[in-house]
């Protein structure tokens, strides 16, 4: 095991870099997109609500791997030349955004509707009330679930391995077949994943407890 770490150190570091980069990019954009569709879902306009619902249901119910491969294989054929890392990260973003949308919607709906009415009564427009009063409160509630989504993103970014996205899992496959020491290679990579995800996961649990009290 030590041999794998020392001998393939640069591949492993590169892998971690791509895994984290992809996860961070996907977290930022899926939060933005997810929030957008969550707002769609609570709008008074019925057409917008339907659009929000359809988007969420479609991407929640199709495997991430299928979405990522779709972007890797089909988008370059007809739309734009994107590489595996980009395709995988886009897939990751869209897939995760549907889960975040659900979380944010629940957050918005848990804010007392009286607050929206009060803000409107005080002369705020719908959008002002939404962005200044409702969303900040909703986000406070959803910080722990968002943190858990980030952990999921780190784990799920392993689909980049299927589209040559240079992430940790891709490097793992490569190292496993170069060193011909399959189990130890995957064990090393497993420890690398845990080093990222375990502390995050404990921190989130701690945060959840603190917010609950």
């Amino acid at each position, binding site marked *: 095991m030590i041999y794998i770490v020392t001998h393939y150190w640069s591949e492993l570091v590169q892998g971690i870099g791509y895994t984290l980069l992809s996860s961070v990019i996907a977290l930022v954009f899926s939060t933005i997109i997810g929030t957008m569709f969550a707002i769609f879902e609570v709008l008074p306009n019925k057409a917008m609500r339907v659009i929000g619902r359809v988007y969420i249901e479609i991407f929640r*119910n199709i*495997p*991430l791997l*299928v979405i990522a491969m779709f972007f890797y294989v*089909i988008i370059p054929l007809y739309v734009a030349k994107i590489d595996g890392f980009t395709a995988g990260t886009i897939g990751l973003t869209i897939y995760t955004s549907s889960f975040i949308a659900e979380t944010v919607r629940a957050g918005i709906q848990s804010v007392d509707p009286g607050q929206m009415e009060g803000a409107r009564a005080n002369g705020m427009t719908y959008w002002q009330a939404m962005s200044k009063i409702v969303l900040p409160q909703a986000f406070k509630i959803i910080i722990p679930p968002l943190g858990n989504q980030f952990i999921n993103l780190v*784990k799920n970014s392993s689909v980049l391995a299927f589209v040559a996205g240079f992430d940790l899992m891709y490097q793992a496959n490569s190292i496993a077949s170069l060193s011909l020491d399959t189990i130890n290679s*995957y064990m090393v990579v*497993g420890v690398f*994943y845990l080093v990222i995800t375990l502390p995050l*996961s404990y921190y989130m649990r701690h945060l959840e407890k603190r917010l609950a009290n």
Partner: protein
Amino acid sequence: MQNFIQAYSWVNIRFLLEGLWVTVEVSVVSIIASFIIGSILGVLRYVKIKYLSAVIGFVVDMVRNLPLILIIFFTYFGLPHLGFKPGILFATILAMTIFESAMLAEIVRSGILAVDYGQMEGARANGMTYVQALWHIIFPQAIKKTIPTIVSQFISLIKDTSLATIIVLPELLNHAQIIYGQNTAYIIPMFVMIALMYFVICYALSVLSRILDKKLA
């Protein structure tokens, strides 16, 4: 359009359905097994038996924080080192069950925590033992409370079976890849078809969970 008609020949559709069957098989067995094991682990983690609960807690956390693909590799490539040689179907089911049990253990534990502690005291006051109260009063309510979360976890499980294509499990995605690998004109029709198949199953399950949730509430 021509491509779609040719791609959806009976031979190809039948091949996809064979893949779908494997996906369903793996999913159903893993769902049942992980529900049972996950519930037991969740309860054991909650009741706080010295050392045992701590060890279970730690192992559950480890498994939950690893990518599922790694666990698939471990069961398929790793178990033979321990003297046990699973076939590909069994290795996949085992990996899914290990991963989902850990996920469910956490859900069940939080469900139990959410049930009012007064109920436990009430049941004990009425002469039930701790285990009886846990089994008859607390556990059913915990499950009821967490049904939507549990079902969405099962939906994830169904979707995640596609990852086993990396060890050449002949499931839905793998069969689609074989078809479009032999004729790249079929790429789009295949993606459309398997996306539809996954969607129908997963969406149906989520609708079912909503109905169930409403009925029980």
